[in-house]
């Protein structure tokens, strides 16, 4: 079979940010360079407690392959992780542990709440289950579904990537951010 070279689209590993380009130089703002670097090297910490965790395993597998988004390196230590992925039912007894994991993460840190249980308690509206992790830690992106398909988890990660890319370098020092953390009683 003959292949035509004219239709081949070129893909780059990362999109170049806006800037001024000339012979031998490229100038852009520091925010954009840092955002570009962070966005494409997010280290997730999987906090998987139930079926959403199984979907996450599929997401990490060869078929869906989260590595395409620069997140193949899972961090099982919160100290080196950028993104906390909470996947599954969080019992009230697990709450303080999840919170401790979040507190051990270094700034900047993001949280992705995967599935109905992590986001709202889901079908487990009962005395023993935490009704959404946003009662104890701040959440950046929620992924709906029970459990969500890997495509949805990837969509959530891409939304996180967008937040990471466009975040101001000063955001974590702002009074609003500190007030938000104080609302959760962190720091």
């Amino acid at each position: 079979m003959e292949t035509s070279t004219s239709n081949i689209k070129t893909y780059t590993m990362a999109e170049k940010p806006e800037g001024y380009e000339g012979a031998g130089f490229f100038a852009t703002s520091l925010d954009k360079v840092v955002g570009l670097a962070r966005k494409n090297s997010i280290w997730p910490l999987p906090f998987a407690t139930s079926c959403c965790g199984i979907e996450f395993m599929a997401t990490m597998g060869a078929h869906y392959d989260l590595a395409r988004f620069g997140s193949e390196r899972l961090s099982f230590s919160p100290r080196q992780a950028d993104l906390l992925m909470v996947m599954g039912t969080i019992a009230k007894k697990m709450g303080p542990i999840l919170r401790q994991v979040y507190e051990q993460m270094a700034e900047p840190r993001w949280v992705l709440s995967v599935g109905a249980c992590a986001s709202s308690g889901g079908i487990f509206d009962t005395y023993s289950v935490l009704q959404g992790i946003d009662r104890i830690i701040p959440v950046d992106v929620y992924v709906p579904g029970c459990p969500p398909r890997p495509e949805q988890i990837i969509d959530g990660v891409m939304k996180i990537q967008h937040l990471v890319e466009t975040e101001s370098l000063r955001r974590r020092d702002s009074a609003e951010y500190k007030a938000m953390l104080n609302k959760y009683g962190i720091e």
Partner: protein
Amino acid sequence: MEVTEQERLVAILKERYDDQVEKVETIQEFLTLTLKKENIADIIQYLYHHPETKFQFLTTLFAVHYPDLNQIAIVYQLHNLVSNQRLRLKVYLPIENPTIKTITTVFAGANWMERETYDFFGVNFEGHPDLRRILNVEDMIIFPLRKEYPLEDQTREDKSDKMFGR
């Protein structure tokens, strides 16, 4: 279990603890005895050692709350692994002060079962070596499987009548 076997079993128990047996019934071929609470540990010990009964395996131990009777029933299920006989013992306790003697003296495995029963029903097992919550959070102030407590988490806001028109 054959009817004759059941009769023999009840006879063995009544030989020594006739005054303790309140009710004998067979629920779906499962012999169920309702006992008074005072000598429960001794009775289980007696059934454990008696050469004809030898109930040496505790299948389960749990509680049932009867809000209409204002009582909590403790249910013991015993198993004789040699003859494959099973036996259920029921003891009713008042809801105001559900206190009963521990059977950890007979079955060490009853330790966690009694802790679970305490955790969910608030039953006080006298003489238990370490009676504290086992599954729920330590600072929980209710006994969630008692029927006076609502099942649903009361702090949830998205299920209000306003939204569902209940």
